[in-house]
């Protein structure tokens, strides 16, 4: 990626995170590279087991070791490699410069502490303030994320909150120290559609207010289309395509991205016709096929795909793809089926 760009707040280079299990080595993330710009929303999409969440956890070094291990790569935050930090630096860093919102708001809050307490904890951990200031600050945060009836809610326990409200609390905790990057791992998957819309709007609003960058991990292409500036598509632990959102949706150059676009049901389509699914199922991460990982499900596979995994290269400015036929898609000599 273009290294002259000073706008980058995060740069991940050739990240490899493996899990050493009894069944063999699971290559959950296998050579992923991307960057995140200031005030940008980056969407990471992919199916279950494609390595989206492990990528996010690796950035914060939250991979449990053993069985997991970051075996290779660099994660540069403002030029400093997160993988070189010692534990003190790391604790200072997590939740302060980069914070995370998890998928399940039911299990990511501590059930035995009040909500107010948990937010205060996040503030006190990183800032040299007394309890009183932290309390006032927490009130402000809860108000910012739209929790009604503050006085009572501050001393409530998580089980007294609905799913949407809990996710709001999680967001309040995550933005407590105005981080530079907010990583949201499927933040709305456990929520109903109307609540999902509320939470996503809130995140968008807060991003404007705090000038932070967001990495949003999701399998919902609608969410990506609406909120992301750039998108990385992952498949079987690898990044297969990376570009701005328009390119990914309108002129994808990797057959997997193409297949994804064709297989979704859309609210705005008028005709009820057969969907075009991607045949087969994702491969086991322990026993990946030789050559391209997508080869066995690919409609465009050729002999060359058997031999080696295609490198993730820039096929046009700012557009990366890992497919031997990407150039053909790009030039139009290999036709994409019209949507």
């Amino acid at each position, binding site marked *: 990626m273009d290294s002259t760009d000073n706008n980058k707040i995060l740069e991940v280079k050739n990240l490899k995170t493996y899990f050493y299990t009894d069944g063999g080595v699971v290559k959950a993330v296998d050579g992923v590279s991307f960057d995140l710009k200031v005030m940008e929303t980056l969407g990471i999409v992919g199916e279950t087991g494609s390595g989206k969440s492990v990528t996010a956890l690796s950035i914060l070094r939250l991979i449990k070791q053993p069985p997991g291990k970051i075996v290779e790569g660099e994660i540069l935050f403002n030029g400093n490699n997160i993988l070189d930090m010692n534990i003190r630096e790391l604790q200072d860093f997590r939740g302060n410069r980069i914070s995370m919102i998890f998928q399940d708001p039911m299990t990511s809050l501590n059930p035995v502490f009040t909500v107010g307490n948990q937010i205060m904890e996040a503030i006190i951990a990183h800032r040299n303030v007394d309890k009183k200031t932290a309390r006032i600050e927490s009130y402000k945060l809860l108000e910012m994320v739209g929790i009604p009836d503050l006085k009572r809610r501050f001393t409530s326990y998580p089980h007294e909150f609905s799913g949407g409200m809990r996710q709001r609390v999680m967001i309040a905790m995550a933005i407590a120290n105005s981080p530079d990057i907010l990583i949201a791992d499927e933040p709305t998957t456990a929520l109903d559609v109307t609540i999902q819309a509320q939470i*996503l709007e809130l995140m968008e609003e807060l991003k404007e207010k705090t000038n932070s960058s967001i990495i949003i991990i999701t399998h919902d292409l609608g969410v990506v289309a609406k909120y992301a500036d750039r998108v990385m598509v992952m498949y079987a632990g690898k990044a297969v395509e990376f570009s701005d959102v*328009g390119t990914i*949706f309108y002129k994808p150059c990797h057959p997997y991205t193409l297949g*994804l*676009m064709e297989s979704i049901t*859309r*609210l*705005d389509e008028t005709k009820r016709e057969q969907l075009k699914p991607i045949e087969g199922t994702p491969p086991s991460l322990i026993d990946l096929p030789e050559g391209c990982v997508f080869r066995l499900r690919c409609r465009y596979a050729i002999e060359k795909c058997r031999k080696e995994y295609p490198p993730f290269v820039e096929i046009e400015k700012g557009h990366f793809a890992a497919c031997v036929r990407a150039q053909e898609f790009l030039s139009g000599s290999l036709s994409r089926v019209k949507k």
Partner: protein
Amino acid sequence: MTDNNKLLEVKNLKKYFNLRGGFLFQKSQGTVKAVDDISFFIRKGETFGLVGESGCGKSTTSRVILKLTAPTSGHAYYKGEDIFKMNNHELFKMRREIQIIFQDPYASLSPRMTVGDIISEPLEIHRISDKKSRISKVKELLKTVGLNPEHINRYPHEFSGGQRQRIGIARALALTPKLILCDEPVSALDVSVQAQILNLMNGLQKEFDLTYLFIAHDLSVVKHVSNRVAVMYLGKIVEVANSEDLYKSPLHPYTMGLLSAVPIPDPEAEKQRKRIILEGDVPSPIDPPSGCRFHPRCPNAQEICSKSEPELKNYDLSGNEHLAACFFAGKPI
């Protein structure tokens, strides 16, 4: 019943759950009105979609229709006969014709049984054919749903989510049913696999002349598969219409909000769209709001909405049916 095409008709169905709590005396702590007076019908050969958010009573409805749980009151007519008045023998016979596919392909298959046992169990229970021909029937079913017949002796854990859902479908097909209740059949699956299952279900419908009740919370999936759609909110049906009409010109403000909340996978279209965000949470069904249950979240709510409950009325004058339960149906929000 004048319409002979109605395969299933549900009338004034109610299902309440009593909440009991306390240590010794199990005092009643209120009633959850999971399904509260709903009526709808399904025509032969169509796919009827039932959408709504969690807790609105979609799944309870499907369970009550099969009498897997007893209704509080109301009727469900299958081919004109009231399911709730059937004796055990009649119920047994009826269940041959109505089958169900569950949401979670991991929890709905017994891990201790082989695929062959799972699919042939309904045949065994209903004493259809001898063991030998059962095996060939199972193999045929596996082929029908796109699985390898040689995998008949494998266990569910050896299959992926999508393949397990295919096994669930094969089991539902084993008794050559007329009506299949599909309770969120694809919501646990990845998009690329979702499309495979939806296509399979579509093909099977044509091949075996099936009728589906398709329950889901994903509006775009429901739109894709259904001929007619009912929208549920807190135990009530708030709107019923042909799929096209419902999505093109929704009448109930909840439907409008729901449709607007779903982001479209198209960045350009999404930029131009104006979204309406419904505020607040779905209230608890234990103590639902008075009058129209949607009124605390409704941008159009007036005084009358909190006082009396709107009835489902037909707003389509062209002969089609487009029902909505709202005093201000069709008013944009």
